[in-house]
């Protein structure tokens, strides 16, 4: 087939395509509904949820939600070639640095013994299993939406999709989790989210190539 013939065939295909952002929001809504349903069935909110959300403990939910929003914006920018991503990347980096700094301060104050004591609980295993489980529908939704985009860095895009899914799942799981010590929440949630990020980074090059 000659190139000008191909051009004629391409030009005749005028069906509009949906924007990536629109697909992403729709897929994420469905996936969030699935994760929330699973959460209601198998986990359920902690008994003192009202009091917890009215106190500083709500940071456990709020920080992952902020991460979710920023990483979604970053993932969306990455899916659009020619768009500047440094602004989104810097905002996301700052948002990741804050909890890390908080963890270092808490660790410096209470020492390694405090860390070991905080993490010596059955909740750690539950947390490390629950967040990835709740994240799976979100990760599938993000990768599906992103595959209609045109990421020039599939690995980075996949990892960002993992961060979106992991933070969303952490925000949901935080409604169940009744361990509020910084030295538990930061390392446990952080490790669980990092696991989902790694999974996303591995899946990205396999599903986001074009």
């Amino acid at each position, binding site marked *: *087939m*000659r*190139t*000008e*013939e*191909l*051009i*004629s*065939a*391409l*030009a*005749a*295909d*005028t*069906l*509009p*395509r*949906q*924007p*990536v952002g629109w697909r992403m929001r729709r897929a994420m809504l469905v996936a969030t509904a699935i994760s929330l349903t699973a959460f209601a069935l198998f986990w359920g909110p902690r008994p003192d949820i009202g009091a917890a959300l009215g106190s500083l403990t709500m940071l456990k939910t709020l920080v992952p939600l902020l991460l979710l929003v920023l990483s979604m914006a970053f993932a969306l920018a990455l*899916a*659009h*070639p*020619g*768009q500047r991503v440094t602004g989104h990347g810097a905002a996301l980096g700052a948002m990741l640095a804050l909890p890390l700094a908080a963890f270092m301060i808490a660790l410096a104050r209470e020492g390694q013994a405090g860390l070991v004591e905080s993490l010596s609980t059955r909740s750690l295993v539950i947390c490390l299993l629950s967040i990835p489980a709740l994240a799976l529908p979100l990760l599938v939704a993000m990768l599906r939406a992103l595959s*209609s*985009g*045109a990421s*020039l860095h599939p690995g980075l895009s996949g990892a960002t999709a993992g961060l979106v899914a992991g933070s969303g799942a952490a925000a949901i799981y935080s409604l169940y989790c009744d361990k509020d010590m910084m030295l538990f929440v930061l390392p446990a949630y952080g490790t669980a989210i990092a696991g989902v990020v790694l999974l996303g980074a591995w899946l990205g090059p396999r599903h986001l*190539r*074009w």
Partner: protein
Amino acid sequence: MRAANRGDAAAYHRLLTAITPLLRRVVQARGAALGPAGCEDVLQDVLLAIHSKRHTWREDAPLRPWLYAIARHKVVDVFRARGRRVELSIDDFTEALAAQTGPDPTDGRDMEKVLGKLDPRAAEIVRAFGLKGETTAETAARLDMSEGAVRTALHRALKSIARLRERMIE
């Protein structure tokens, strides 16, 4: 491009025709070893990529950076994959050499193989627009389909073509 994304086929045709010579020069500069037909195949891959990713250009952004990013990504990707294939297979060399003496330098070879793998009706529709330059109404009348059905069929056929070529490169 803005008009094209809103469904103006004529404007889209002009755009693709206008950028093709530039893209061809870029491809030929990088891929002299592939021969003219091989280069044309790469060029057609780039055009298909531009087409299937056209919704990732934002209307408020300049077109050039987007276009170059898509083209660069695709050219690098295709040359990486084909370079490996050419090294591995002697047939490809002889084929490329034979094609070098071919009469029409804008004729790609891969597209025919891909069209052969599509179902006959879909291939017929792609050919109808490409080779014969028919309009939607003419194709619809000839194949006894509604115009909407022709549009959808063409859209799906081009999607499968992009997918099949992707697989062929790998």
